[in-house]
């Protein structure tokens, strides 16, 4: 349909050039870079040029002359403020908004940004008012063509903002950095008050259910109230009869929120201490141990990312494929883990990552050999690994009573691990030979965790079990054991008051207990790509 009458109609209502283009449904970003020229061109020629781009370019050329005629930088008067976007898309408002931009403070390294807008809610009401009038005036007007305020904001303000902050504007799907300006109109809520008379049932419901709806006006409730609004109803309201009420006050930029999408570091940690929990161990708000694997790993990562100690807790998140008890070491290739860095300022170089590893390992309690950046998708591997992986442990065990198989001369003598014991353990099985698992256990939730876990009986599988004598320690033996994830090894050895059945003692008909436990290997490929630069 003809664009000229629509433009004229919008202008008469008090819309700015950019909003005129929005109501025309134009979606070409180039057009919005000089809205005024483009609108004037349509008005002059009756129709736009054969393609938007050409005319936008042409208008660039024309720009200087036109500026000479009518400087756009003049101070805007309140009555010039657009009744639809409330000035957001008008260059005259922007200097104030530019002043609010102090994103350089956070020191993002990325060259690009995406630009977000949180507009006053009453812009929704005002858009609806214009649309209703357009539909009333032009029967063939399609209300769905409206170019969203946010898009136009990007193409107009965003382009200029790029120059101010020295980064290039990109889409939110591409750039990891999103900078959102939060805009407030002082009379926003007063203006929306009319919706209570226009859509009384909706707001009565909301005020009845105060617990569910803590605020009356949200973007959603406003949109809901506007859905069935008719022009007649709107025109019945004071101030809306002949058009839209003038914008009496400035829309202010109350805050600028910039946030970078999280980055993830992946690696494996070796834990060498038997007095080190994986994460801070708190009992009733009191910490039980000075440090933790998490804190040792966080410390240099935080420093390299310039994260203040006070912010570490909410800026860094530790994830791992399972965990070990505080008194269990994790050796071999270590346990897969990842660290999520919220709102990171920069990407660390391979050298910096190396330095982080060195700093971690310097503690002597934790060793991390490599750290690399991983993707969010990779993390699912880590979590999947938590359930599906199997683990190999090494345990140091003690024989506490004579075996019923032992030929005891003196019952008071110290029990000794015999060759027979070793053989019995190494051949012990309660499954059929074709079964992949050698032993299947039923474990009730161990007493030591029963206070915080449900009482359940879990079936777990042991794939390998190899005992070895220790020549210098006749009462001790070592055990290499490969099990399904989630097997409680300590309980398998001592039986947890008979609550794990069978338990190791049953293989040799003697009482056995565990002195020390190490994770020897967590069988999970991680991180997925191991680039060694």
């Amino acid at each position, binding site marked *: 349909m003809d664009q000229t009458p629509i433009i004229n109609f919008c202008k008469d209502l008090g819309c700015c050039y950019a909003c005129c283009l929005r109501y025309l449904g134009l979606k070409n970003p180039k057009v919005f870079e000089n809205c005024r020229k483009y609108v004037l061109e349509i008005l002059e020629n009756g129709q736009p040029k054969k393609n938007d781009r050409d005319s936008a370019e042409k208008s660039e050329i024309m720009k200087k002359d036109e500026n000479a005629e009518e400087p756009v930088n003049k101070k805007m008067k309140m009555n010039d403020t657009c009744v639809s976007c409330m000035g957001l898309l008008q260059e005259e408002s922007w200097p104030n908004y530019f002043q609010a931009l102090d994103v350089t403070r956070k020191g993002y390294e990325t060259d690009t940004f995406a630009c977000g807008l949180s507009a006053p809610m009453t812009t929704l009401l005002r858009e609806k008012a214009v649309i209703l009038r357009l539909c009333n005036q032009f029967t063939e007007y399609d209300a769905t063509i409206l170019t969203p305020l946010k898009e136009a904001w990007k193409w107009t303000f965003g382009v200029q903002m790029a120059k101010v902050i020295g980064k290039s504007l990109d889409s939110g799907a591409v750039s990891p950095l999103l900078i959102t300006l939060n805009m407030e109109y002082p009379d926003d809520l007063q203006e929306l008050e009319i919706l209570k008379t226009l859509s009384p049932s909706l707001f009565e419901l909301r005020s009845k259910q105060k617990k569910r709806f803590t605020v009356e006006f949200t973007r959603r409730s406003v949109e809901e109230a506007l859905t069935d609004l008719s022009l007649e109803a709107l025109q019945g309201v004071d101030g809306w009869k002949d058009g839209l009420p003038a914008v009496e006050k400035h829309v202010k930029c109350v805050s600028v929120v910039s946030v970078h999408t999280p980055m993830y570091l992946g690696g494996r940690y070796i834990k060498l201490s038997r007095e080190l929990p994986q994460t801070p161990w708190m009992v009733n708000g009191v910490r039980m141990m000075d440090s933790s694997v998490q804190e040792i790993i966080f410390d240099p990562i935080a420093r390299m990312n310039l994260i203040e100690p006070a912010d570490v807790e909410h800026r860094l998140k530790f994830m791992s494929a399972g965990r070990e008890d505080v008194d269990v070491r994790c050796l071999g290739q270590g346990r897969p883990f990842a660290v999520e860095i919220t709102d990171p300022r920069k990407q660390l170089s391979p050298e910096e990552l190396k330095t982080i590893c060195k700093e971690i390992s310097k503690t002597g309690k934790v*060793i991390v050999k490599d750290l690399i950046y991983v993707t969010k998708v990779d993390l699912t591997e880590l979590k999947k690994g938590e359930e599906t992986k199997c683990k190999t442990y*090494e345990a140091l065990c003690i024989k*506490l009573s004579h075996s019923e198989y032992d030929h005891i001369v003196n019952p008071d003598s110290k029990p000794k691990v015999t060759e027979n014991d070793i053989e019995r353990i190494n051949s012990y099985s309660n499954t059929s030979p074709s079964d992949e698992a050698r032993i299947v256990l039923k474990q009730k939730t161990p007493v030591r965790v029963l*206070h915080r876990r449900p*009482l359940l009986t879990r079936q777990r599988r042991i794939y390998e079990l190899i005992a070895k004598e220790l020549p210098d320690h006749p009462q*001790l033996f*070592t055990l290499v054991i490969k099990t399904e994830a989630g097997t409680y090894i300590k309980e398998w050895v001592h039986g947890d008051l*008979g609550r794990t059945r069978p338990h190791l003692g049953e293989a040799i008909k003697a009482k056995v207990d565990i002195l020390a436990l190490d994770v020897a290997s967590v069988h999970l490929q991680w991180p997925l790509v191991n680039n060694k630069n």
Partner: protein
Amino acid sequence: MAFNILDSIPDIDNFKSYTDRYFSKRYILDVDGVKNNDIMIMFHSNRIALLSLAPSHYFFKKNDDYTINFTIGNIDRLSNTVKGKGKKGGQYLTPKSVICKIEYCDGTSYAVPSCMKGTLVEINEELVNNPALLKKLPDSDGFIAIILASIAVSEATKSELLAHDEYLKKLNSQNSDGKKD
């Protein structure tokens, strides 16, 4: 870098049993005024409590065959179930609640009270088929029940009951009193 599990062999002479590693034992003597009806409650550091008989209980002096009956009136302790982390649905226990009865062939029996307020989490079902465990390993595999109380109740009960050394002292004085009689 090689790390050997043998680096961490603890001092075996000071080896602590499973029970001693995790639990502190508390005792209550002559429950219900019955001489040597002595109960032991073992508190895990995580406030889980195990109910058992104290070594001085007269049960350990009697050598007759016995069975352990977990049906108390119309309550079947063995059908106790708990759900979730909060152990919801477990039977509610007061100190007087009877957990089980030890019954002898001659028709005599005596009741084991829970001696503390809390939720019954688990009965040691193994005792049904293998009642000898109670005599053989009263402070480990022969425990009678697992009880969970609130932190406050658990702490209060723990401080009310006799600690291990107080228990030994009391037993000693009882024994010497006995000799004087």
